[in-house]
């Protein structure tokens, strides 16, 4: 059974994938579904769902909650992917260097990594965003800075075991340059764990961004799910829909990404899966 068919046989992973396809479709179709700015006051304030022409109701200023969710999807996904990519850009080279060279280099890199791991990541993210002023780049940067250490540890471990393999030893013997060995022999073989980790990191990044926005540390000019939950929170008694639907959107997206990540993991490491299930 190859990886693809193993993934296809995993029902949870398929459900997750379906949810992500829907999400991507929403992001792509957002300009057609809701061409107006989600900040526009379009209806009666605090209108209930299905009351009037608004599917998910309106918020305290009469803004369309559904429009907010559709436009917020784009921001959430964008921040999730970009900040994960940024974290990989920091984490992968560091891990590769530490694992390949070992010794003092390894010690230095790992102590540096541990330094970041000992600081509570959410607190660090809050501090970074507060200092840099809340904006899209500062939020991406903050999420990347708090999420790269696990990547480094993972890659280091992989490289540590890969570099003792015969084909790497052979590459060294034929005299390939060190960067070439790292990039062409070792890193391609770490791709599978990186993909699994990245899919889970996107979920974490979306949660982190939502938490920041919830606390009022989001980009004030971007409609995001976390912002919507935060802004509707104080009205939850008389207008539950303002914070419920964006909260549901966060929940489903994070769940879907986790299911897909698990699915990929199981598909790529069938032996590991069996051992765990035993």
């Amino acid at each position, binding site marked *: 059974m190859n990886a693809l068919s193993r993934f296809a046989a995993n029902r949870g992973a398929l459900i997750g994938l379906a949810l992500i396809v829907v999400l991507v479709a929403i992001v792509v179709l957002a300009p057609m579904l809701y061409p107006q*700015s989600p*900040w*526009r*006051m379009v209806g009666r*304030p605090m209108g209930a769902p299905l009351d009037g022409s608004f599917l998910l109701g309106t918020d*305290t*200023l*009469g803004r369309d909650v559904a429009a907010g969710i559709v436009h917020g999807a784009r921001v959430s996904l964008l921040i999730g992917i970009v900040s994960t990519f940024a974290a990989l850009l920091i984490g992968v080279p560091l891990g590769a260097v530490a694992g390949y060279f070992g010794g003092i280099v390894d010690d230095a890199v790992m102590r540096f990594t541990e330094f970041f791991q000992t600081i509570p990541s959410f607190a660090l993210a809050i501090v970074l965003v*507060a200092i840099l*002023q*809340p904006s899209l780049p500062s939020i991406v940067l903050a999420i990347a800075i708090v999420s790269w250490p696990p990547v480094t540890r993972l890659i280091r471990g992989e490289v540590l075991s890969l570099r003792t393999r015969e084909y790497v030893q052979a590459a060294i013997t034929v005299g390939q340059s060190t960067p070439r060995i790292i990039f062409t022999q070792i890193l391609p073989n770490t791709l599978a764990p990186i993909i699994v980790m990245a899919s889970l990191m996107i979920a974490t990044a979306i949660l982190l961004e939502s938490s920041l926005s919830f606390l*009022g*540390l989001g980009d*004030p*000019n971007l409609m995001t799910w976390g912002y919507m939950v935060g*802004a509707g929170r*104080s*009205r939850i008694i*008389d207008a539950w829909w303002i914070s419920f639907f964006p909260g549901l959107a966060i929940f489903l997206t994070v769940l879907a990404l986790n299911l897909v990540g698990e699915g990929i993991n199981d598909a790529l490491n069938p032996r590991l899966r069996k051992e765990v299930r035993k």
Partner: protein
Amino acid sequence: MRMRTYLAAGVAALVFAVTSAAQAQVEGGSVSVVVTPEPPMLMQALNQNGPTNMIAGNIYESLLRFNEALEPQPSLAQSWEVSEDGTVYTFKLQEGVTWHDGEPFSADDVVFSLDVFLREVHPRWRPIVNNQVETIEKVDDNTVRLTLKQPFGPLLLAMETASAPIVPKHIYEGTDYASNPMNNTPIGTGPFKFEEWNRGSYVHLVKNEDYWMDGRPYLDEIYWRFIPDAAARAFAYETGEVDVLTGGAVDIFDVPRLSELENSCVTSKGWEMFAPHAWITINHRNGILGNQQFRQGLMHAIDREFGRDVVWNGFGEIPTGPISSKTRFYDADVPTYDYDPEKARELIEASGYDGEPIEFLALPYGETWTRWAEAIRQNFADVGVDLQIVTTDVPGWTQRTSEWNFDMTFNFLYQLGDPAIGVARSYISSNIIKGSPFANVGGYSNEEADKLFAAAAIAPSDEERQELYSQMQALLAEDLPVLWLLELDYPTIHRCNVKNVVTTAIGVNDGFRDAWKE
């Protein structure tokens, strides 16, 4: 049958007797009041933060009180006379007044407070005493005379408790005022005495048994409670833990819900002296913002009624100019700006605005202000103006505003009863100074307006002042130094059986002298 009628009449008479007895003021009782945030200190002459004034205004007293029409009423001064030419004010003091520590109060305390103490420490009294007052002298133990350099109409209004509290000479004379240990246990002449301050929790005031006014106060004690979260404050009122929510203690959207509870009363009165006026401060130094036509376009673009009705839940009035309609010398006959995006777009286009982004420094005073900024950003987007909101915390806002480091921001200032005291400071060019967010931080400079403000402050009669202030309002409403948004309402919510909480122009700040609990 007849018998029963008599009986019914008897019962009715009895009921009537009981209810009318209940109408009379009842002595005793304890009241819990929520005030937010916790004040830094209670020595009112050294600190005039809102929460300080709310509590300390019941400990300290000034020469005068003000009713809701801003007319002076006796307080430590039982009567006063103003000379024909408006330059000599003679105050006759109450007799038999003692400080909370038992020392007698006299004209010496008044002279010391106004001439020495407040001249040195008080930001609002200092400019008045330095610029307007020639001498402050004791005539006899119960009489004080102020002689002015020229007539100064607002002088009496400056005698409000927070603006000119009378402090005990025997405690402060010759000491370093700011570090005097007695600042922690304030001694005043007011109806309530300081008892205890449990930091982070409450301030406890008790009845002053030797208060100079017979029969007052009615209440035995007041607890001023500090609860850090707005929702928790609302909850404390709902559960009956507290009796009074002072203005601003709960989010404005909670006010209708809380006022519909049983035995719950709400009033917007008691803020006439302050009449907080909210606007968008414009930094005139920054590019297109110095353009009058552009500002007029922005004013037409803002849906101010939406702001009041939706963002502020219907509380407040829409202002026409720099002077609040709740205070003196207001004139409605000025150019007005209705919500008209079409007209706004034309004016903005004609002004030469090229689509450059304008930064809006958000005011970090809670959700209502954030929502308001979002609504206005959308109003501006509708007419093609690109407003980018920048968020910050309170120290960040104060710092950036004081240092002129902004394009636009919200602000709201107290009017303090008279335009010469509370209004002029935001528009006159001599007040373009760094270091305070309440100066003319936008850098608005208009010679004509400067002249009108200066002349109106010292014009001898109210008619002449009105004439000059009317001209000033018409001029500024045309020029728009700032974008006036709302005359804010700060509703006070209280249990209906706590009576007479708000009877003056400063509401709870000195209201507990007359309050009683049924």
